[in-house]
C-alpha cells in the first residue's frame, strides 16, 4: 500500500508519459503563478522569522523572569546593614534561592550611567543596596518569601522583574501568534489564488482538453499535466522568493544581547532550516489546489 503510494508519487514526479507537454506553455499564466508564489514565499519567510524571533524572545524573557530577581534594601544609613543581614538570612533559609550576590556600588553606577549620563554624581543619589538573586522558579514560593521579608526586613523590596517583563512576554507571545496567523492566511490565499489560476488555465485550454479527451485521455492524465505544470511553477517561484527573503534576513544586523527587539528578527541556529518549509508548503498547496480545480473543471470542458 505504502509502496504503491510511493511509486505513484515517483511516477508523478518523473512524468514518464510526458503529460506535461500537452499543456500549452502559456508564458503569461506560467509567469504569474511563479511570480505570485515568489511574493507569497518572500512574505512567508519574513513572517516565519518573526514567529521564530518572537517565540525566542518570549522564551528568553520568561526564563529571565524565572531565574533572576533583585532585592533592594531601602533604609536610612544606620539600619541598612542590619536589614541587609536579616534579608540575607531569610534568603539563605528559603528553598528555591540558588545564589545571592551583592551588587557593588561601582557596578550600580555603571548600570545607571546609560540612563543618567556620565556627569551626574551618582554618589549623591540615595541608592538602595542591591542584592542579585538567582532563583529556581519551581521551588520558590514568592508570596511566602515576601511575607517573611516584610516581617524580618521591612526595608527590603523583592522584585522578580515580573511587573515590567510580563507585559513584554505577553506582547511577544501575541506577536508570535500574529505571525503564525499570517503564515496560515498566506497559505490559504496561495491555495485560493492558485485554484482560481488553475480554473482559468483549464478554461483557457478548453480546446486542448477537449482534444485530449477525444483521443482517449483519462481525466487523471489531464489533471496530472495541469497539476505538474502549476506545482513546478509555484515551487520554482517559492524557491526564488524564499531565497530572496533568507538573503535579506542574513544581511540584517545581528541581535546583540541587549539589542532592541526588532534587531533580533533574524534567524538563528536551526531556524535557518525553517524556510525550507516554505517552498515545500507552496508546492503541496499548489498541487492540492490545482488538482481540485482541474478535476472540477474537466467536467465542464468535456
Amino acid at each position: 500500500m505504502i509502496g504503491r503510494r510511493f511509486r505513484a508519487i515517483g511516477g508523478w514526479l518523473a512524468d514518464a508519459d510526458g503529460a506535461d507537454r500537452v499543456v500549452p506553455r502559456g508564458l503569461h499564466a506560467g509567469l504569474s503563478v511563479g511570480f505570485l508564489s515568489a511574493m507569497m514565499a518572500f512574505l512567508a519567510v519574513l513572517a516565519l522569522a518573526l514567529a521564530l524571533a518572537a517565540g525566542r524572545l518570549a522564551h528568553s524573557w520568561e526564563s529571565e523572569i524565572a531565574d533572576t530577581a533583585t532585592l533592594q534594601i531601602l533604609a536610612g544609613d544606620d539600619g541598612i546593614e542590619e536589614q541587609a543581614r536579616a534579608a540575607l538570612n531569610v534568603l539563605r533559609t528559603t528553598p528555591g534561592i540558588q545564589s545571592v550576590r551583592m551588587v557593588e556600588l561601582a557596578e550600580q553606577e555603571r548600570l545607571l550611567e546609560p540612563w543618567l549620563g556620565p556627569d551626574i554624581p551618582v554618589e549623591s543619589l540615595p541608592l538602595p543596596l542591591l542584592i542579585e538573586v538567582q532563583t529556581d522558579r519551581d521551588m520558590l514560593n514568592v508570596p511566602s518569601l515576601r511575607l517573611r521579608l516584610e516581617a524580618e526586613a521591612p526595608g527590603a523590596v523583592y522584585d522578580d522583574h515580573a511587573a515590567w517583563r510580563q507585559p513584554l512576554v505577553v506582547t511577544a507571545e501575541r506577536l508570535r501568534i500574529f505571525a503564525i496567523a499570517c503564515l496560515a492566511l498566506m497559505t490559504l490565499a496561495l491555495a485560493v489564488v492558485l485554484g482560481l489560476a488553475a480554473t482559468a488555465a483549464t478554461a483557457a485550454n478548453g480546446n486542448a482538453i477537449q482534444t485530449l479527451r477525444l483521443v482517449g485521455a483519462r481525466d487523471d492524465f489531464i489533471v496530472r499535466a495541469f497539476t505538474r505544470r502549476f506545482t513546478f511553477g509555484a515551487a520554482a517561484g517559492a524557491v526564488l522568493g524564499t531565497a530572496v527573503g533568507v538573503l535579506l534576513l542574513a544581511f540584517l544586523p545581528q541581535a546583540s544581547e541587549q539589542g532592541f527587539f526588532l534587531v533580533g528578527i533574524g534567524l538563528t541556529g536551526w531556524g535557518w532550516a525553517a524556510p525550507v518549509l516554505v517552498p515545500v508548503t507552496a508546492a503541496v498547496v499548489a498541487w492540492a489546489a490545482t488538482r481540485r480545480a482541474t478535476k472540477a473543471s474537466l467536467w465542464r470542458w468535456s
Partner: protein
Amino acid sequence: MIEFDEAGFSYGGTSVLRNVSLTLAPGSFHFLIGPSGVGKTTLLRLCYMDLVPTEGAVRFFGTEIAPSDRNAVAALRRAVGVVHQDCQFLDHMSVFENIALPLRVSGIPAAERAGDIEALLEWVDLGDRVDALPPELSGGERQRAALARAVILSPDVIVADEPTGNVDWDMAQRLLALLVELNRMGKTVVIATHDLNLIRAAKGRVAARVLRLANGQVQPAGADL
C-alpha cells in the same frame, strides 16, 4: 461493434436523428451520405460518445456506457479512432507529437512505436512535415495527419467525418486505399461523405454498404450510385 437501438438525438429542441437502429458489425465498411446539415456528423459523434443519445441507446461492444463513467468513455475513444471534421490538434506540438498523442495518453512511449509512426507518416505523405506545427499545415495535410492519429492505436473501429473534404482526388484515393487496407485487417470503418465519386472508387475494392441519412432516418442507399 456499435449498435444504435432506436436512438434519437436533438440539440436543445431541434431533433436531428429519430429512431435510428443500426448495427456497425465488426469488419464492416459503411459510407454515410446525405446533404450538408442532415446530421451525419451528429450520428458519427454518437459513435464515440462525444454526444449521448437523447432517446434510445447506443451500445458499444455489447454494453451501454454511462457518460459519467469517464474512464470507460476514455477507453472507448481508444478503441474508436476518429478523423474529426474539424481536425482538432494541439497547436503547440509538432505533427509528429500530435500523431503520437493517443500513444502518449495511453502511457505508451512514442519511442517504442517510432517505426510505426514513420511508416504511417510515409503512408499519408507527411514524412517531411513531422516537425511542422498544425497551424502551418494545409487543409489536406491536416486531414492526413488526423487520419494517421486516428489509426495509431490500431483501434477496432475507425470513424471518418468527411476525410477527403479538403484533399485532391489523388490523395482522396490514397486515403480511401488506406481505409480499405485497414478494413481488410478486420477494422470496422465508417465514412461520412458527400463525395459520391469516392463511393464509386470504393466499389469493387471493398464490400461497402451505403447508408443515406434523410429526415433524421437512416436508409440503405440504392444501387444507383
